[in-house]
């Protein structure tokens, strides 16, 4: 009589498709309701990245603005409004509203605005960018949930649209939640 061989466990997998990255380029904005995706923006230097997220309907948006004030070029303000904080930020909110997000539920965070080693703050575009975001939010009665600006290192931002978790990546440290 041959010993009974132990039946092998049936093969099974638990697999989920890798998260899709929706990449927000410099001077661009993406709003999305695809909660299988992440919004990512790379290499924020002096630029500022703003994210908004409605946790109830799981809709979010991300803006990568490069300059504070569109009045330096009317032409560019029209052709590339997301390049500037003053034109890009309202457009970001409106895009999220259009997808079903509601203002009072929105979680708002922003990061970036790095600067040179500049004690005199002459080349302070990073600071002007983050100040422009702060002032427009305040003017519209929006209190940001988290802010991380300044320093002299670039940042990559990644927001998971299923949770709204925002990760900050910098070359000198491990990725962390903001």
């Amino acid at each position, binding site marked *: 009589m041959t010993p009974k061989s132990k039946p092998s466990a049936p093969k099974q997998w638990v697999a989920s498709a890798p998260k899709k990255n929706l990449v927000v380029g410099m001077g661009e904005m993406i709003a999305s309701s695809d909660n299988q995706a992440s919004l990512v923006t790379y290499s924020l*230097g002096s630029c500022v990245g703003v994210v908004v997220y409605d946790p109830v309907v799981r809709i979010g948006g991300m803006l990568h603005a490069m300059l504070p004030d569109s009045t330096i070029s009317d032409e560019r303000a029209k052709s590339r409004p997301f390049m500037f904080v003053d034109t890009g930020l309202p457009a970001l909110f409106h895009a999220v509203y259009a997808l079903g997000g509601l203002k009072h539920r929105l979680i708002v965070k922003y990061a970036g605005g790095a600067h040179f080693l500049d004690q*005199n703050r*002459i080349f302070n575009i990073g600071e*002007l960018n983050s100040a422009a975001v702060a002032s427009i939010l305040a003017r519209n009665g929006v209190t940001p949930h988290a802010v991380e600006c300044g320093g002299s290192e*670039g940042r990559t931002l990644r927001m998971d649209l299923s949770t709204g978790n925002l990760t900050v990546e910098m*070359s000198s440290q491990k990725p962390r939640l903001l």
Partner: protein
Amino acid sequence: MSTEELIAKAGHLKPPASTVTRLIELLSNIESCNSELLFLLEHDAILSAKILGLCNSAAMGGHCIESLDQAILRLGYQSIYKLVLSLGFGSTLSPKLDGYQFHASALWQHSLLAAIVTSPILERQASLDLNPSIAYTAGLVHDIGKVVLNQVMDEAKLVRIREMLSRDHCALLEAERAVIGSDHAETGAYLLRSWGLPGSIVEAVAHHHSPVLSPKPQLSAVIHLADLLAHNAGPAPGMASYSVRPHPEVYSAMHLTSQDVQRLILATIEAQTFVEVIATAS
């Protein structure tokens, strides 16, 4: 390690093709004309082919240009000069630089961007009376010293430099001096002098982090500003994009307001398209 020792180690770094160095020499002569440029280019088949390819690309306006003399006629001496020069230095500046955490072509793209933005800077600085082609050249080669220093940058040095940048908030230049014994500005200038580039370019590279502003701003001030703009507007590559110390008086010496600087940043952002076209062609 002294600058001389560093350069000796960089023996394999070849100067750009003789066409390019001769072309830079030509620049010193204001009277140099199209026929001389044409003569030089016609003797460099590879460079000529690349130039024609670029001139016919959509990014350059989609001209239908069949010969070099047509190219010079249509786009002008200055444009062709810039293209030749950009392509000529491409191979020297585009390798991956592990010591600086630069992916392949990162330094190349930064250099091109700095070169291109010398033009909008000079548009507002007519009183400086600087030759735009010389400024473009200096912008293109301003960081060439990093290619030399990269060879001696081992893991231990890299760790020390990174620490000095992130913990002590040192500028990259200061960290290089402390860890290697020389910096990329000094080393680059030394290398370019040994290749026979004109003194004005060598001087601007040597001082691109310590610009000469009086009695009036020199070429080094233009390159300093171009470098800042390129660091600021380019994708922040490597470890030290923002570990740069702007000269506290560079704006006032050049009579620049915050709005002027923002316009220059916008011009730099828009120049990225050309950088990509040239970087792909080289």
